[in-house]
């Protein structure tokens, strides 16, 4: 059974959500909940670090798109870090590259908020 782990931390006023394992129809709701919780507590500058994610399905994309819409509506943004090869392939197939910014690592993504 594939694992899933999620940790949330703050880096210079930016919320970093570190995800590991598989983000699929079973586990994506937990990512969505974490993003909603961050927004609900007033955190609209979010980085999702996917460095530990080897598999992501359309469920992951739905959770991330909802996060993008929520953060931008609140005047912030959601940015991605460390999107690996196979996950990146899914993002490209789904046309996500034109919707959300990607960075090599979480520190660079967090710094991009200025």
């Amino acid at each position, binding site marked *: *059974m*594939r694992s899933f782990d999620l940790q949330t931390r703050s880096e210079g006023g930016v919320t970093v959500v570190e995800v590991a394992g598989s983000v*699929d*129809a*079973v586990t994506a709701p937990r990512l969505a909940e974490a993003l909603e919780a961050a927004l609900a507590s007033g955190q609209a500058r979010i980085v999702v670090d996917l460095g530990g994610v*080897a*598999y992501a*399905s*359309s*469920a992951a*994309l*739905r959770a991330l*798109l*909802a996060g*993008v*819409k929520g953060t*931008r509506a609140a005047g912030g943004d959601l940015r991605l870090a460390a999107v690996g090869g*196979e996950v990146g392939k*899914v993002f490209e*197939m*789904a*046309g996500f590259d*034109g*919707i*959300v910014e990607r960075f090599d690592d979480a520190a660079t993504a967090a710094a991009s908020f200025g």
Partner: protein
Amino acid sequence: MATPLRLTKSATPANLTLFLTLVDVLADRHGLPDQARGDLRLLTEEACTNVVMHAFPGREPGELTLELDYADGVASVTLIDDGVAFSPDDAPRPDLGADWQSRREGGVGWHLIRNLSDELAYDRVDEKNHLTLRKRVAT
């Protein structure tokens, strides 16, 4: 020649993990490389999730049968469900060029299925949907 793997369960979110585990069994049995395993898992997940989420609107979930096979370099994923009739031709196609405000949160699953599979066949037989996806797998 190994017999196909087959699992029948109610089409509920709680059973998705069981269906996806069958992909690991197939991949282990045939020594499929990691990329093939990932592609098959994605195909299976997207197809099974469509049934779980959309095949039984307003009623108790029916049954979903998943059958996986691999022979002569081709993996096949077959789903049989007794939900509402739904052909892949009827599936929404996402507007991949839409900006983030216009982009719908759904519709990507079928897009991934079409992109990842080499063949897609659908039929409605005896009030059941039969969907078969085939993918050539390099070993």
